């Protein structure tokens, strides 16, 4: 006997993500899922963003890594609430892991929650966490061909940050062609060329983010 199913395999994750979303909404927390390959600058961007938001928005951070708590320690020094999730080998965060971590955060005292996903350009795209917004950091040394290799990630992002633009004089990276390719398949995307090292462009990103949180 054949049974028609036609059900999304990610349904179970999506249901938990929906519950997370309700919890965030009831606490009025704006949530950003930060995705990138390893070494693109996720933690650096979060640190630079926190510094610029001090006194403006109350920030909290979820740090997702396969192992270690190095990133959480670096962020804890900025004086914001942070919780580390070690996925123990899983290459992405999922809604359930996120839900477990939320119990350790003072959600009532957080207005903006930055969730640093595991460094990976494939797997995190499939797993909703309950976020309001997805951002993708793509750094110039990775090359300007990344949208073509990881289309889903670029298709799903609300903002793409091109990090390490201070290295552009040494690299073959065409910022215009890169931006044009992403905007072709993703009409809503905002592109921000930045350098977490020199600070160039970071204020523009933070101003935009503030507008999103406020809206």
């Amino acid at each position, binding site marked *: *006997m*054949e*049974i*028609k*199913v*036609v*059900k*999304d*395999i*990610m*349904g*179970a*994750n999506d249901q938990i993500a929906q519950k997370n979303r309700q919890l965030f909404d009831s606490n009025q927390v704006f949530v950003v899922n930060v995705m990138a390959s390893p070494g693109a600058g996720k933690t650096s961007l979060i640190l630079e963003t926190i510094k610029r938001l001090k006194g403006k928005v109350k920030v909290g951070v979820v740090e997702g890594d396969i192992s270690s708590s190095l990133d959480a320690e670096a962020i804890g020094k900025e004086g914001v609430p942070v919780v580390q999730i070690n996925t123990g080998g*899983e*290459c*992405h965060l*999922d809604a359930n892991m996120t839900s477990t971590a939320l119990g350790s955060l003072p959600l009532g005292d957080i207005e903006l929650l930055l969730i640093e996903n595991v460094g990976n350009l*494939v*797997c995190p*795209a*499939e*797993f909703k966490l309950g976020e309001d917004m997805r951002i993708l950091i793509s750094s110039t040394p990775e090359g300007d*061909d990344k*949208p*073509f290799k*990881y*289309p*889903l990630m670029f*298709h799903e992002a609300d903002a793409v940050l091109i990090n390490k633009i201070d290295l552009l004089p040494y690299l073959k990276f065409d910022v215009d062609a890169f931006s*044009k*390719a992403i905007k*072709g*398949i993703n*009409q809503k995307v905002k592109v921000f060329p930045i350098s977490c090292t020199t600070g160039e462009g970071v204020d523009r990103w933070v101003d935009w983010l503030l507008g999103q949180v406020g809206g």
Partner: protein
Amino acid sequence: MHELSITQSMLDLVLEQAKNAGAKEVGKINLVLGEMTGVVDRAVQFYFDFLSKGTAAEGAALSFKVIPTTARCRSCAKDFKLGEFDWTCPHCQGNNIEIVGGKELFVESIEVE
């Protein structure tokens, strides 16, 4: 490596559907995978063989229908397969594109006894 958790979700869904139908055994699972999801059929098969042991779906055959990443040009409304290094429309050279296929990830049907 997301195939491990994706295969577990797929198996949970299949076992729930089989149970609801009062089935004892799942003989075949028909899956639809979009190329854009990056889910690799061989990896799903590998994890499935391991995860399904001792369940009603142990030994079930997996069938994969792979959907290519398909784009639709917003200028001339023609469909085309997304190129590897070029995302312009081959018909009108426009670059305002909508993805219309390749994101699928679902269980289409199961065959049970």
